[in-house]
């Protein structure tokens, strides 16, 4: 199907690269309709309680202030599916940072000053923000995130595990982490004769439009949501966030367009985070390292606003031979901000624990950790028994080991020194499910030989716009330059969000189908393209009506070399190498960027990123990018991403698997395993900051 000079699979440059570097690309907060007012939300300063007074009269007297909205006067909303969108609807404060008021003024400065000046009184109640494994409020939910069953049991773990020749029983913890995309969440809203237009920083504007239609009781056709360019999201923009409802509400209330850009320091409380987890992993294996019993039990927290359960035990259902298995989640609702998606929710947390435990098993059994994983390759997906559509984890491990120089590795921990530095290497596997959702798209041929593809995809920095053009050009047998792709507006054909590493598969499938249909019509039009052009429309509802009988996942292997400084406890990554089996790679340039971006985020997860819950106040202590440490360039020395070719006919017409998340999945475990190899200390609490590492490496003198 791919023609000789197809642009698919080539490293095409980003279609909007020039617009971005020249500043021509406009983001949510960069649209300023005439008469635009500015809104700044007011966060609660208690962790639990009720609002008893909002002294809006004092603030309304300040210069430029148009309105103060609070639960006392805000328009009533219809109940949203996502309770975090029910803003200013009642006096309850479920966590610190929850919005209790919104100030609208003529300038951003006046709005900020008025928001700061607004006095809000509370009846504070005692709060509980501390996750413990013995918390009396812990319960087993029905489902964990993405609708998976919270608990799965196979065989008889309790009998099989004690009988195993080699056993590991270890508990891994990590604090909360925040997505912190470069572009903070922002919305500009405008009403014209009952019609709402919103420029929103979102990973999926169809979903935002639907949520707005729900809360404002409008028809979907009365709303347009534009997310043309988005400066990252990492999951935090995958669901509509309070700012979009507040901006629309304020615009309706004041009769002016309203712009609302959330200050960085407010984000930690209102746009989600990766929930902290306590994960106990027990492995029982024969002397040959083959696993007989596996338990992965997760304790995590959610808010009192909604139930979100980080599905960290799920990868254990996919990864290894495990005839006797128990995977489960327990959760407690605390007076904390609502957790949500952060790049590879479930897999990133869960594979840190599982892949660390695999390393511990390798040490306990005296087997090389690459070999141990090869010995535990399952015939079919352990939990479902379904055949894999394709699984090339073994190839990733072997190829990675070859490229990394793994075979020369001395397995003894704590024996390699370079001056004050201890050196070590580690490996971990990665997995991420193949997800795909129905999408619509149109393809249009113009008489001048150009094509226009329309689909409400979102390019959050991934290169979606570019790869969709490549797919279209491939099917149409046309030069890439002849295809223009229009994305990022809810007026375009309905499409799912950029999330779950599913965007390219979902949108691309619809684009592929529309273009195939268009190509057929063009063949049937021997007189050439008529003046009005030819348009073909497609959607993939029918293709996706049934799940295929295969377990479909991408896999990967991560190899890390670290140094641990015996003077300071500082751990730095010297080399990071990932090999992925993710179907067909459609654009090596943007794919590589996705892989190494995920791996870099994994360095942060392993070594630098943490959000500290302040028990006294009930908020996260880190409020900015100076205190929340995402890796700097200097933290990323040598980083390589490679992939093995995978030809899987059970995916989509392009043959691709998602690549947006798998890069982070095994990285933290590979680094933590390398830290063990370097220092001899098994540290089971991320991130591995100097305060935690130093007691285990020094003093050398």
């Amino acid at each position, binding site marked *: 199907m791919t023609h000789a000079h197809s642009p698919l699979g080539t490293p095409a440059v980003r279609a909007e690269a020039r617009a971005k570097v020249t500043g021509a690309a406009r983001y949510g907060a960069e649209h300023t309709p005439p008469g635009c007012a500015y809104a700044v939300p007011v966060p609660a300063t208690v962790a639990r309680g009720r609002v008893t007074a909002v002294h809006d009269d004092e603030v309304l007297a300040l210069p430029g202030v148009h309105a103060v909205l609070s639960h006392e006067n805000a328009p009533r909303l219809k109940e949203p599916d996502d309770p975090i969108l029910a803003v200013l609807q009642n006096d309850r404060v479920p966590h610190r940072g929850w919005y209790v008021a919104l100030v609208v003024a003529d300038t951003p400065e006046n709005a900020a000053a008025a928001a700061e000046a607004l006095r809000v009184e509370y009846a504070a109640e005692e709060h509980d923000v501390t996750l413990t494994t013995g918390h009396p409020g812990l319960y087993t939910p029905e489902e964990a995130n993405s609708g998976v069953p919270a608990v799965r049991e196979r065989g008889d773990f309790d009998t099989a595990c004690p009988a195993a020749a080699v056993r590991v029983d270890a508990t891994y913890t990590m604090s909360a982490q925040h997505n912190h995309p470069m572009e903070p969440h922002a919305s500009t809203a405008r009403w014209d004769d009952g019609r709402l237009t919103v420029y929103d920083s979102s990973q999926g504007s169809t979903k935002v439009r639907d949520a707005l239609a729900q809360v404002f009781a409008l028809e979907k056709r009365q709303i347009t949501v534009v997310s043309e360019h988005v400066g990252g999201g990492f999951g935090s923009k995958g669901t509509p966030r309070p700012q979009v409802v507040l901006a629309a509400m304020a615009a309706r209330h004041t009769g002016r367009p309203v712009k609302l850009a959330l200050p960085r320091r407010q984000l930690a409380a209102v746009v989600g985070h990766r929930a902290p987890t306590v994960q106990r992993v027990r492995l029982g294996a024969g002397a040959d390292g083959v696993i007989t019993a596996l338990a992965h039990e997760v304790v995590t927290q959610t808010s009192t606003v909604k139930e979100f359960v980080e599905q960290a035990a799920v990868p254990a259902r996919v990864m290894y031979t495990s005839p006797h298995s128990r995977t489960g989640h327990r959760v407690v609702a605390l007076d904390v901000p609502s957790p949500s998606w952060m790049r590879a929710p479930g897999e990133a947390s869960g594979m840190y624990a599982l892949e660390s435990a695999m390393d511990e098993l390798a040490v306990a059994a005296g087997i090389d950790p690459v070999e141990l994983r090869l010995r535990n390759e399952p015939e079919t997906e352990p939990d479902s028994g379904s055949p894999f559509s394709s699984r090339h984890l073994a190839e990733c491990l072997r190829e990675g080991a070859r490229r990394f120089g793994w075979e020369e590795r001395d397995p003894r921990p704590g024996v390699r020194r370079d001056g004050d530095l201890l050196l070590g290497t580690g490996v971990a596997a990665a997995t991420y499910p193949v997800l795909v959702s129905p999408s619509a798209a149109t393809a249009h041929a113009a008489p001048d030989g150009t094509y226009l593809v329309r689909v409400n995809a979102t390019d959050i920095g991934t290169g979606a716009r570019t790869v969709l053009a490549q797919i279209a050009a491939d099917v149409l047998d046309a030069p890439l330059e002849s295809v223009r792709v229009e994305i990022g507006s809810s007026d375009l054909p309905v499409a799912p969000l950029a999330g779950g590493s599913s965007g390219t598969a979902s949108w691309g499938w619809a684009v592929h189908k529309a273009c195939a249909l268009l190509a057929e019509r063009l063949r049937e039009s021997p007189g050439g393209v008529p003046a009005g052009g030819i348009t073909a429309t497609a959607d993939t509802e029918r293709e996706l009506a049934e799940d295929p009988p295969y377990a479909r996942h991408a896999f990967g292997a991560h190899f890390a070399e670290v140094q641990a*400084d015996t*003077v300071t*406890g500082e751990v730095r990554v010297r080399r990071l190498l990932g090999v992925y089996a993710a179907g067909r790679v459609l654009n090596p340039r943007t794919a590589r960027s996705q892989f190494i971006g995920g791996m870099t985020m994994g360095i942060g997860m392993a070594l630098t990123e943490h959000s500290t819950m302040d028990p006294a106040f009930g908020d996260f202590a*880190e409020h900015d990018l100076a205190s929340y440490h995402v890796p*700097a360039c*200097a*933290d990323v020395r040598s980083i390589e991403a490679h992939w093995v070719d995978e030809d899987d006919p059970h995916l989509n017409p392009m043959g691709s698997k998602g690549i947006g998340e798998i890069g982070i999945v095994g990285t933290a475990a590979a680094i933590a395993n390398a830290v063990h190899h370097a220092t001899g200390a098994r540290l089971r609490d991320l991130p591995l*900051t100097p*305060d935690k590492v*130093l007691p285990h490496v020094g003093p050398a003198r």
Partner: protein
Amino acid sequence: MKPFAYFRAESAEEAVDAFAGHERAQYLGGGTNLVDLMKLGVAAPDLLIDVSRLPLDGIEETPDGGLHIGATVRNSDLAAHPAVRTRYAALSQALLSGASGQLRNVATTGGNLLQRTRCTYFQDTSKPCNKRTPGTGCPARDGVHRDLAVLGHSEHCVATHPSDMAVALAALDATVHLSGPQGTRAVPVTGFHRLPGDRPDQDTVVRTGELITGVTLPPVLPGTQCGYRKARDRTSYAFALASVAAVLRVESGVVRDAALAFGGLAHVPWRGRAAEEVLRGAPATEETYARAADAELAAAEPLRDNGFKVPLARNLAISVLAELASRT
């Protein structure tokens, strides 16, 4: 917005004159800290006197062989200056380990000395803080304080001074020059910052209206080595968990001169006088350096979650001194 007046001074005298009569005036250097604090509502000056373009941007040799650094010299320029790199390497290293390239290009010598703590409670106006609002309390003491002080703190404040540059200046015995309504004066860097005591709102001994005009470094005796080392959570753009600046002169295996200063441990760049006493005249061995560090850090009173800073500072001190001694 909170209105404030802005005045760009052409000379130090003009700047000092402009300050007179203003309750809440502040001098504006590079603005890398002050402007942030204004946005956070922590600082609310009624007048900003822009001193960033005063003709104080020179670095000059002094007659006695030292170096005079104008107050508006940018951190990047200071770090790159040949005399600084060769004779005062600790200062260059400290500067380059601070902030980011972009910030260093803007931040000034005077402003760097006057930057305020990055304690998250200080920066959050929704929470109590004795430094920001005297008398409201210090939640950091029992709260999130991994990054905060282990030396010289008080029940009122456990903040640290965030500067790297100031730590090197403290070890190098630099002098700060001030110009104010009552004339000019010189203050040693080691006496420039204050411990919090019961007045944590006062970071320094600078009097109302006084302007930093420059910093002077004394000459360096031949055979002296100096260096700076910093430990931090990430490799760039992170404040010191702990840092050490050291100046060392060893002759025939014996320490003749030594100066030591710690960063990230206290409300001030912490000059290690007790350590220096141990060092002077003692054999230049790691055993001596360890004793010296221990003598200094005996005064440490770690909080619940920052005890790691004591062994960290100890290791850093030993490592820096050993490295300097190995060069002689």
